[in-house]
């Protein structure tokens, strides 16, 4: 793939395929950015994924703290509800979303997609944040409460700073979930200016003539943010993924 993205169109269609380009060229990359609106796709994906990740992590942290620290009636039921929402398939919701968003004028907008992505990210973020907050000893809360701090103060001044690495991991995980989605974007957008990276890549499949070097460079660039984020924060992400599932 890496090799194809540096090929000229003619070379990509050689039989047998060349494994290393004879004349490496950046043509495909330049083409994607200048002729194919790839810049717009990238911007859309970034804005939407980032907003979704921030929102879902904030609400997830609140709920995660609630589940982690308080015993109340109906707690098990609510946890079950959060878990069950994780299981719902997107295809159950895209139909009503299509109609609802159209009604409120949010069809084919970034806001509409951000709302839609919350359905994927919020349950996950809650669960992940709960896992991280569970690791913070309750004694810290109690100490701060004794010192006259309110519950909210505890949350914002003690819990959030301590679990900052966990929040970063959760934000990134939610970001990747939103970044990688195709189903919602394909169902809830219609104009070129709202296309995201994944849709930009997937749409070319139906085209009559696929220009593979361009497509491979697009795929590579579409996967890049995920790879970079993962490489940078590998340890945190792995911790986060297992935090919800594994208990020490």
């Amino acid at each position, binding site marked *: 793939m890496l090799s194809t993205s540096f090929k000229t169109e003619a070379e990509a269609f050689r*039989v047998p395929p060349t494994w290393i380009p004879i004349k490496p060229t950046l043509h495909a990359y330049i083409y994607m950015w200048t002729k194919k609106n790839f810049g717009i796709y990238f911007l859309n994906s970034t804005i939407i994924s980032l907003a979704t990740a921030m929102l879902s992590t904030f609400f997830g942290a609140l709920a995660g703290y*609630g589940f982690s620290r308080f015993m109340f009636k109906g707690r098990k039921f609510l946890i079950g509800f959060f878990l069950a929402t*994780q299981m719902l398939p997107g*295809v159950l919701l895209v139909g009503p979303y299509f109609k609802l968003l159209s009604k409120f004028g949010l069809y084919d907008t970034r806001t509409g997609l951000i709302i839609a992505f*919350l359905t994927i990210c919020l349950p996950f973020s809650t669960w992940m944040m709960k896992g991280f907050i569970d690791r913070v000893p309750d004694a810290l809360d109690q100490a701060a409460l004794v010192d006259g701090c309110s519950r909210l103060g505890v949350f914002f001044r003690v819990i959030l700073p301590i679990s900052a690495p966990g929040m970063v991991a959760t934000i990134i995980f939610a970001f990747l979930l939103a970044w990688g989605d195709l189903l919602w974007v394909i169902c809830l957008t219609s104009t070129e200016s709202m296309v995201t990276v994944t849709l930009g890549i997937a749409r070319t499949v139906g085209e009559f003539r696929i220009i593979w070097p361009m497509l491979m460079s697009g795929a590579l660039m579409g996967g890049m943010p995920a790879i970079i984020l993962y490489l940078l924060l590998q340890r945190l992400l792995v911790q986060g993924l297992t935090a919800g599932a594994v208990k020490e």
Partner: protein
Amino acid sequence: MWTFFVLPGTILLVLVLGFPAFQSILYSIYPEGGGSSYNLNNYSILFSDSVFRQVFGNTVLFVILSVASHLLLGLGVALVLNMEIFAKPLFRLIALLPWVVPDVVVGIIWRWMFDPVYGSFNDLLIKAGLISTHIQWLSNPKLALASVIFVNLWRGFPFVMLILLAGLQSISTVLYEAAAIDGASRWQLFSRITLPGLKKMLVVALALDIVWEVRRFGLIQTMTQGGPGNITEVLSTYIYKQYFQFFRFEYASAVAVVMTAALLMVSLPYIWMISQEE
């Protein structure tokens, strides 16, 4: 006090998720092409539809084979990575990569590699002397579903591996040492200590993986779009087509409701186990 923390998220979930899900159920009992009263016609159409049954069968096959291979490969790699091997962090780093990349990207790359004439997959096999003719991996009806599952195997096993690896690392080494002193064989170590120790992690990995594979959309949409014919059509691509290509909203909703019911049934033991433990 707990309400202040838990309620915002809960209300948000009910609004963005619960309400549309409920609407979908309403659509599904609404007669196609208009009508006055609610009925279950869409469901009877659905269950007598041979395409639906084929798609349902495809999905079951796709999910079972994907998840089973994820478990086997994931467990194998996790066992290897749990040993003291050379450059372990590097291997772990690489092993997880296919999972973080969007499945659309994975799908499109493999579509290119699977290209019968220009793709590198056939070229590699021919050079290795394994095949002599160019194979149509994605357009041959006998091979298409297998090819898609093969790609999904490679793409999806890292998550299972990750969860199982975390499970392996939580098993105390003292247990192994004690058993070794008592003269246990390697197989006994594995079946009496490792597997029981992994039980919970296996349930978690299995449940989440099943749910994700049932919902998988981008991979199939980019590789085959359900074709040739309906050979690789799964529920999610089928429902998408019913909604946005044939505009059969009521019918599509009915299929989606059936799919959701099946998913919830499969994942109920997991949800029950986790929420009781909390």
